[in-house]
């Protein structure tokens, strides 16, 4: 049923929308049976039953005493789909002030009601000036407005054609410079992660114009310029970037805000991965907290699972345990329903792991059967928890080795993940196993640490590399 269009449409509607649609269907749906079927389905909202059995029941109510016809019911459902889509489409158009008035302006222009079209055009100019920060999206719409005035057959336009042409030129240039910078940041950030080509046409000419003073007074443009430098690895401008970004965060549109936020954040995470964990771990936490406060991470009422995990992880690293636990409770509802339980269990286990309540972490990881997607990280976290417990209680030695062996054989057997993704986990297991064995043979922590540091120098990927180093160092201190 998940693949069924009607099923999905009903699932996507809120109860308010259902109410509006019900009211609408009474007045607008001309076929009484479609209206009746719609009312029947509304009663089942949000999860409607359109299995064969469900459809037969609906048919019986619509055509009492007649033999079931799948074609008939499908035809009616298709009418309902069209009705819902038309409603959603029209509603969106009406909510979007720009789209609605721009269309109306075109209608009036076509109908030769030039004064009315002109009034709407002025209204649209004011709407853009009031609601948009100067950016490529703003200038793109302005170009359309100036062009419509230039092409207008209205004999009494306010601005002369020559002035309008100048305005189009000026606005087009601004649009072009902005869009090139935005795309450059987008493409270069992506290239940094997936190692692809980062060519952006016309970027050098835009940069030259900027160096010659073009748009240098525009804060957003300056921010794009800094973002571009950040993606090129220029470290010294980060604090300036951070300052400007936070000073104008509230003025930015969602898309721009997200792009500039992730550009900064990716830089911070690169620094964390390069070993600057103490300083940049806290910075990352601050950035995430601010993004949550300004609500930019909730897109279409959803939060990405990766972002959720990252926030939990940085919250723990910053030792903001209470904050992290309340974050988990408050934001879990924004995750896709299929991952909520997995994510909750894993996040809580991670929090307990960070506060060194390893037994509670183990309980959270073992009393629930995680889905396939979560197996790698949860199994490793379980082993890490046993590893930590083993340092306090050597009786856990065998349990630790058994878990490592089981995970190793799971990794060897499983073909879901590419080998490249599994290697850091395999290495992590191998190192932990060796350390446990050395410890079991009563080798001193000093020697184990020396051995591990020599392994680290070989630079092969190990999941939890730095955690392992910290654990060994801390245990050495405690042993002393």
């Amino acid at each position, binding site marked *: 049923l998940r693949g069924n269009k009607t099923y999905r449409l009903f699932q996507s509607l809120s109860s308010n929308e259902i109410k509006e649609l019900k009211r*609408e269907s009474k007045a607008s749906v001309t076929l009484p049976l479609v209206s009746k079927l719609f009312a029947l389905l509304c009663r089942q909202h949000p999860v409607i039953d359109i299995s064969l059995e469900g459809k037969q029941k609906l048919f019986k109510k619509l055509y009492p005493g007649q033999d079931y016809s799948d074609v008939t019911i499908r035809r009616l459902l298709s009418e309902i789909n069209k009705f819902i889509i038309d*409603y959603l*489409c*029209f509603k969106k158009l009406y909510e979007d002030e720009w789209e609605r008035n721009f*269309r109306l302006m075109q*209608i009036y222009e076509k*109908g030769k009601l030039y004064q009315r079209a002109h009034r709407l055009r002025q209204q649209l100019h004011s709407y853009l000036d009031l609601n948009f920060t100067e950016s490529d999206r703003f200038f793109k719409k302005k170009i359309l407005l100036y062009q419509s005035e230039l092409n207008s057959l209205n004999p009494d336009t306010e601005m002369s054609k020559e002035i309008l042409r100048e305005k189009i030129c000026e606005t087009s*240039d601004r649009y072009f410079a902005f869009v090139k910078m935005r795309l450059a940041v987008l493409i270069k950030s992506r290239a940094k992660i997936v190692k*692809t080509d980062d060519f952006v046409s016309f970027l050098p000419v835009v940069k030259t114009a900027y160096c010659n003073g073009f748009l240098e007074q525009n804060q957003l443009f300056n921010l794009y310029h800094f973002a571009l430098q950040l993606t090129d690895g220029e470290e010294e401008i980060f604090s300036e970037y951070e300052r400007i970004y936070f000073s104008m965060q509230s003025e930015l549109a969602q*898309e721009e805000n997200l792009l500039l936020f992730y550009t900064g954040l990716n830089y911070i995470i690169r620094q964390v991965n390069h070993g600057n964990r103490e300083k940049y771990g806290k910075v990352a936490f601050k950035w995430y907290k601010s993004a949550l406060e300004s609500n930019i991470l909730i897109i279409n009422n959803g939060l990405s699972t990766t972002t959720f995990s990252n926030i939990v992880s940085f919250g723990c690293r910053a030792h903001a345990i209470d904050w992290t636990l309340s974050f988990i409770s408050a934001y879990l509802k924004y995750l896709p329903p299929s991952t909520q339980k997995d994510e909750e269990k894993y996040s809580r286990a991670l929090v307990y792991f960070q506060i060194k309540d390893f037994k509670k972490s183990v309980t959270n990881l073992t009393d629930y059967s995680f889905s396939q997607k979560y197996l790698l990280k949860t199994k490793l976290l379980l082993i890490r928890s046993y590893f930590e417990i083993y340092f306090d209680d050597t009786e856990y030695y065998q349990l630790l080795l058994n878990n490592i062996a089981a995970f190793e054989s799971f990794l060897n057997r499983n073909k879901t993940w590419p080998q490249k993704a599994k290697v850091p986990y395999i290495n992590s297991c191998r190192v932990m196993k060796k350390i446990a064995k050395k410890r079991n043979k009563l080798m001193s922590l000093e020697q184990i640490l020396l051995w591990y540091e020599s392994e680290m120098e070989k630079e092969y990927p190990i999941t939890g590399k730095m955690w392992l180093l910290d654990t060994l160092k801390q245990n050495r201190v405690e042993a002393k």
Partner: protein
Amino acid sequence: VLFGANTFKQLILDRHNEIIADALETLSLLSVEDFKKLRQASRLPAFFGSERVFQLYIALRSHYPDFSVSPGDLRKIYGKIFPDKKFSSHRLEKSFVELQKTTEAFLLNLELEKEEIFKARMTVIAVAERPYLFNLFSKTLDKIHEICSQEDLLKNTAHWYLQSELFDLLYSNKQHNKYDINDKTLESLNAACDHFFAHSIGPLILTKKASERVSSLFVEGIATAVQNSELADDKLLQLFFLQTKIDDPVIAEKVKELKAELTVSERDYFNHCIQLR
């Protein structure tokens, strides 16, 4: 004193007449068939319809299509809508405002019905934020791309505006879709933006003589790209940029060839741009 009492009264009267004139003007845009359809629409809540709007529609029916309505007619109309109430110009005005709103909503809906690509675009925007409707999102996007790739479609500023908006939308909703937001999407977005810019200044070049220059900072770069690289396959752009050098016989010949290759809609658009000169 800016306004005397009489002037103020006149202003109110003017405003009152303007509101009524606006509503009637909007109604006059409807064809006979569409005006008939408005009857049902005037009761729909989605179109801000109501029983009062419906009654006003009925009262105005006989005045279609020129709607020349005298103050006396307005009193009669009022009597039909509010049979038991004393005449109030404010109440009448309000009804006309509502009718105007309903007619505009109806006109917009007609556009959605008539223009396939507009409807598809609004559908994509409407469903993009609904994770359960990914299939509809991607199918509608495919449909738009199919329509947009038709050879006889006019690819001017409006076309490239739509393209850049769609690729942007696709990028912003990457978390919901199976479309890999790969380099190809970003490449297409980049190309759409280049075309949009070039088409916004292209027609302006036509207005200049060979000795003059368009005051754009980036026109030179675009001109080179139109001749040699990224934008070289866009015939309309080539024509815009070559037009300034039409005195050169070689160029004039090339322009002639290019014009012959244009589709009907492209030729009409090009001629319209020439006329604007």
